């Protein structure tokens, strides 16, 4: 089974990204936020998101989204089991966007070593605290983790499909 995992901080757009390319009504586990996340959104994923897409060659790619909060990190291990690649989504307009990226690169380091990874920068249309894309490249370069980085709109299926195709290209190489 070809299984790709979407991860990243709260509010990065994981559920939205999976929903935008889903061929079926996505399986979600959204509940009402009661923590500080409520400032960003009303509902949050507590177990997983699931859906799938079928590529032009007929290959079905299963998509799993993780919860963003650290307290659900037990789900991260469960969901990455058997995965072929990782998509890390980061809110580009987050004041500590680079730290946020590094947190997930560290948390998923074991999985990243075994598979391919692409980075999607979301909320690029907001420019309150926006970090330049070059800073993300620099961060990855310093860590010796050269992954493709894309500015995307998680609501746009073509943008999210670009991430999937880039990840599959990384895996082939």
């Amino acid at each position, binding site marked *: 089974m070809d299984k790709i995992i979407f991860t990243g901080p709260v509010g990065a757009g994981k559920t939205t990204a999976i929903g935008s390319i889903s061929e079926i009504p996505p399986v979600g586990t959204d509940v009402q936020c*009661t923590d500080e996340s409520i400032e960003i959104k009303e509902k949050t994923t*507590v*177990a997983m998101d699931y859906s799938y897409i079928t590529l032009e060659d007929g290959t079905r790619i299963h998509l799993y989204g993780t919860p963003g909060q650290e*307290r659900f990190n037990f789900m991260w291990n469960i969901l990455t089991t058997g995965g072929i690649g990782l998509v890390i989504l980061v809110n580009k307009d987050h004041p500590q966007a680079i730290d946020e990226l590094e947190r997930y690169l560290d948390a998923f380091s074991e999985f990243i070593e075994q598979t391919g990874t692409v980075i999607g920068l979301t909320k690029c249309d907001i420019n309150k605290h926006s970090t330049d894309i070059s800073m993300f490249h620099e961060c990855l370069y310093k860590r010796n983790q050269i992954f493709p980085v894309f500015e995307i709109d998680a609501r746009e299926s073509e943008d999210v499909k670009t991430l999937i195709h880039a990840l599959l290209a990384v895996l082939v190489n």
Partner: protein
Amino acid sequence: MQIINDAITKLTDENNTKSGNQDEIINQALDHVLKDLMAQCENIKGAIISSVDGISCATALHDNLDQNRFSAMSSALLALSDTLMNESHNDLTKNVLIEANAGKIFIMHATDKLLLSVFIDEQANLGLSLAYAKQAIDKIEAILSAL
């Protein structure tokens, strides 16, 4: 039960609401709900009240269980179960029951924002334990409806 009634009285007292004592009173009352639950049956070995998004609100545990981790796991399990029930029966979960040789855990919705997780040992009567848990949920609802 008297302590819980007192808490409800305090919560309906305008002075307490104004002075910001509400959270403290609620937490104390929820702690008492769990203590009462554990006192009702020696086979109930622990209980946690958590928010639906996995934050621990009150605990009564005999073992050194990580309440924060357990709250998050309970929330994930109940949310998955709700999704499963919603898609198969267009309904919400009454309870999630996990059984093992050493004991059982059940997780239930307490209110729309809270859930109750209860640990029972292998000797426990499941039906009775569920009934005690339901009584605890009635008390939680009474406390929160006093707000």
